[in-house]
């Protein structure tokens, strides 16, 4: 693959920081953000001849999103397998010692709270559940609006109603 004399290096130097910052803003670690940025430019280079002369940024932006989504699909949407360890493994040392076991009453109480919360959540209208789940996963109002295809006011009112209903069902004061 060629990287010289055809404007690619200029594009790389102009947009690298922007692409890297995009990944960082999505809470990807610094090292992984650099890796993803390099992957993004590698993919841009593969299609470089077809976009020559045009503004590369719209295409680069699309590639950056695609690389991020692929990365997230591969790493964060899979069921996590439990780490296994053999009995002879020197890592099999419990240090520091495990915290004291919760009492039976503690466990019962925790179980009860979580069942209550789960049920209360499930009893919310679907639209409120979706809004609240996205919000609890740190999406902004605008991002929720975009994902659900509703107005910003609808996002705010659904969240407000969902919190109110949960408080009522959980017996909390506002």
């Amino acid at each position, binding site marked *: 693959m060629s*990287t010289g004399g055809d404007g690619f290096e200029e594009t790389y*130097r102009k947009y690298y920081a922007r692409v890297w910052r995009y990944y960082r803003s999505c809470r990807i670690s610094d090292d992984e953000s650099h890796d993803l940025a390099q992957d993004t430019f590698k993919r841009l280079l593969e299609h470089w001849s077809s976009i020559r002369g045009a503004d590369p940024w719209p295409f680069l*932006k699309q590639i950056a999103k695609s690389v991020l989504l692929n990365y997230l699909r591969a790493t964060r949407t899979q069921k996590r397998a439990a780490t296994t360890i053999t009995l002879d493994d020197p890592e099999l040392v419990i240090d520091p010692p495990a915290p004291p076991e919760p009492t039976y009453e503690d466990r019962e109480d925790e179980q009860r709270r979580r069942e209550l919360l789960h049920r209360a959540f*499930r009893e919310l209208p679907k639209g409120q559940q979706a809004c609240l789940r996205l919000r609890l*996963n740190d999406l902004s109002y605008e991002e929720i609006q975009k994902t659900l295809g509703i107005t910003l006011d609808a996002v705010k009112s659904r969240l407000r109603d969902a919190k109110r209903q949960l408080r009522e069902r959980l017996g909390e004061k506002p």
Partner: protein
Amino acid sequence: MIRKDDWEAVLARLSAEEREEVGLPPTTEEMLAFDEGNLSPEETERVRRLMVAYPELAGALAHPVPEDDAPLPAGELDRRWMEFQRTLPRRREPGRVLVFWKASAALAAALAIAFGGLLWEARRDLARPHVIGDERLLEPDGQRGGAETALTLTPYSDWYLLTVPIIGVGGYEDYRLDVHAPGQQNAVWGSGVLSRRSNDAFSIVVPRRFLAAPGTYQVVLYGVRGGGEERLATYSVRVPRA
């Protein structure tokens, strides 16, 4: 009172339940098409439901790409660019490729010409009638009588075995034979010094290359005595055109 770890546990359970219900996350292509508004209403709703079940993807898709150009720390960009170049597969220099192919083509052409020439020569050689050896008894000029024509050799022999009789020219310590080409003073072939044999004849083998050109050659017999030599006889042979 609900604690933070309660929320985390319940959200994890809700996610697991919903993912179990809706299945795999949307593909990257589906998400990008959703983002661009290129899906049908039914597909849009399906992807939207999947996005709620996979909120990390929804967050990434909805997250805006920055449009500003705040620079990286000094030297960082150079380092990243070098690193980027190192990860690319090495490409061949076009100029060098051209030179390589030109050189290869020239070499191939030279070999083709050389082998073609050899083949042509071999075919031509094979097409020509071959005589393994032409054995002839020569007679001295002036003693053959009649029209006194030179003895004709075949032009197709690889070598000539010529028997040169010594008739009436005794008394020399040694002898010597030369072959002279038509019109040439210098010998094209020489035998070196020969001692007289009991049968009063010398048998010499002359390769064809010394008699290659058509014409009449003269085999000259010299007598060697006391450091000098004397021309004793000539034997004319003719090589016709092949």
